[in-house]
């Protein structure tokens, strides 16, 4: 019996170690989450202030700055423009990104890895550099700055999201599904539309959500390529905080956060929906 004592102590030590491990993991995770969310939470709370300046904690609660926001013509037009640009850019990016994902996953060709890296480069390149480069390119070929130019420049920086998530979905998809569909009489188009695409939707939806959000709140590239008359919401917001600490800026931020959350939830819902269909 005497021999059992150290063994028990060892087992107890194991238990303690186990508990310490999980406490440490949870503490770090919660601290990280708090660190990420706290600033956003503060700006959202500050937007409900009744006072004249952005302060935290807010002085009284009111929706007056949201009301003022609605009254500001340039805020409304820039918000509308941002929505249009982000939607259009996401649509183009989805088409290009899904198409690009196919050869990147399914084909074997020389330089595939290099091409992969190149298509990811906008994620690696500083967007400031990309904005400047885009501006120089556009003026070099003599195209005036306009909404379509802005859309295309956003496409370039958001398409990697779509490629990444679509490629990940495609890599998980059994290649035999395509062969099965072909052998059952489906041509290449029908195989894609009826068999492959439905199975890629979760990946595409996730990529599209990322793409939409990063276009919607992009500032750096837009600063270069939007032009003086094509103002987006982030540019407007930037201008507003530059001049004074207008609580309307906080209200815009709150709206931005709200839209971002809405898009993420929408994507999550779409992914969940396709999961339900598959499960």
């Amino acid at each position, binding site marked *: 019996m005497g021999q059992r004592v150290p063994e028990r102590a060892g087992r107890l030590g194991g238990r303690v170690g186990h508990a310490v491990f999980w406490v440490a993991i949870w503490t770090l995770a919660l601290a990280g989450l708090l660190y990420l969310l706290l600033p956003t939470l503060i700006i959202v709370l500050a937007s409900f202030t009744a006072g004249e300046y952005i302060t935290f904690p807010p002085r009284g609660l009111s929706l007056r700055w949201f009301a003022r926001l609605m009254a500001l013509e340039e805020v409304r037009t820039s918000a509308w423009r941002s929505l249009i640009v982000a939607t259009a850019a996401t649509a183009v990016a989805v088409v290009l990104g899904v198409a690009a994902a196919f050869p990147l996953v399914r084909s074997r060709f020389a330089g595939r890895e290099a091409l992969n890296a190149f298509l990811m480069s906008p994620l690696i390149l500083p967007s400031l550099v990309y904005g400047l480069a885009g501006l120089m390119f556009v003026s070099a070929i003599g195209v005036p700055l306009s909404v379509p130019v802005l859309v295309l420049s956003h496409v370039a920086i958001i398409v990697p999201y779509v490629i990444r998530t679509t490629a990940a979905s495609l890599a998980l998809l*059994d290649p*035999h*599904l395509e*062969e*099965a*569909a*072909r*052998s*059952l*009489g*489906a*041509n290449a188009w*029908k*195989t894609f539309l*009826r*068999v492959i695409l*439905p*199975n890629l939707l979760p990946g595409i939806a996730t990529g599209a959500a990322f793409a939409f959000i990063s276009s919607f709140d992009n500032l750096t590239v837009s600063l270069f390529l939007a032009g003086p008359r094509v103002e987006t919401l982030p540019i407007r917001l930037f201008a507003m905080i530059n001049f004074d600490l207008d609580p309307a800026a906080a209200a815009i931020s709150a709206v931005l956060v709200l839209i971002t959350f809405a898009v993420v939830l929408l994507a999550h819902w779409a992914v969940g929906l*396709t999961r339900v*269909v*598959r*499960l």
Partner: protein
Amino acid sequence: MKPAVAIERRAVTPSPTSARPDLRLVTVSRRYGPVTAVDRVSLDVAPGEFVTLLGPSGCGKTTLLKCIAGFLPPSEGQVVLRDEVMNDVLPHLRNIGIVFQHYALFPHMTVADNVAFGLRMRKRPRGAIASRVQEMLRLVRLPGFADRYPHQLSGGQQQRVALARVLAVEPVLLLLDEPFGALDKKLRVEMQLEVKQLVALLGMTTIFVTHDQEEAMRMSDRVAIMHAGRIVQCAAPEVVYDRPYDLFVADFIGSSNLLDGRILGTGAARLRVEVAGVPLDVPSNATPLTGEAAVVMVRPENLALSDTRPPDRPAWAGVDSLALHTGPVMEYEVVIGETWRLRVSRPRMQVESARVWAKGDRVAVTVVDLEAVRVFPSSTAGATSVRSL
């Protein structure tokens, strides 16, 4: 009647009927750069015939299957389906059905939609599709499963749906690509029987790809054994087993004692060959022998044990070094002299072999049927190993 030797000299037995073959492969080759995956394969498959492509992984059987299905163009040769050259025909226009190892059911579609897929691609009328789907699900004994999704089915059920999906479109040719590989052993044997019966019922011309020789033997009308991109031998299962064309086939199909022998003399269709000091009088084999060295194949079930050497027939004296119970059969290994090991298997229920030996027993080993012993040239290309030296 033709002499046995003449039949044996042909590695590829022609398909049993003289009718137009459903599938004809004419010297089909497929190369990947310098690698030849399929090397001048010719094969006729008669209507309703069940032919198996059997070989170790990397022998080219899957590549050949892809050439037939149209997913890979052959580098040379022709794939002919009912008199039509298919080389340039896209896969979806070939009317060939495939069942894959992991079934490749469409995960986002119900069982009914999976089975209806091929019919919808053929633009059949709605009502006809619905009744055909019901008919196919009854055929594979899954009538109540129309609205399930593939992930809600067991492996065997998914297998049946995959079959129903393929058979619904009445393909000219059915390709089965290792379809039982993902099933556990008991279910696998059940599905083998079921598929075999179903395919026979429909008279479906079938090409079956597998690396499992037992499965191939059990299911096929003919087995085509592939090695290094070529069909080494194509014949009925019992022919492949009893009269393997070369050392590779002898080694690959079933288990066998492959023993180094020395040729003592040749006669008319007979050979005298010495193995471990004992001369045997055996029929001469297909491949001509050169020199003195040869490899002698004796199946373990063609060897018998006794306590003493029988006076009237050749026998080896040795010591039993291994005695394993496998249920129906006792498996022995007998050591003869310094280096020779013979594997012997004896059914336990047979009267004359009811005696069971134990490890360490002194025994005499005799050949039951000398006519079933094969002799191969020792340098046959394709020999993977010469066991029991």
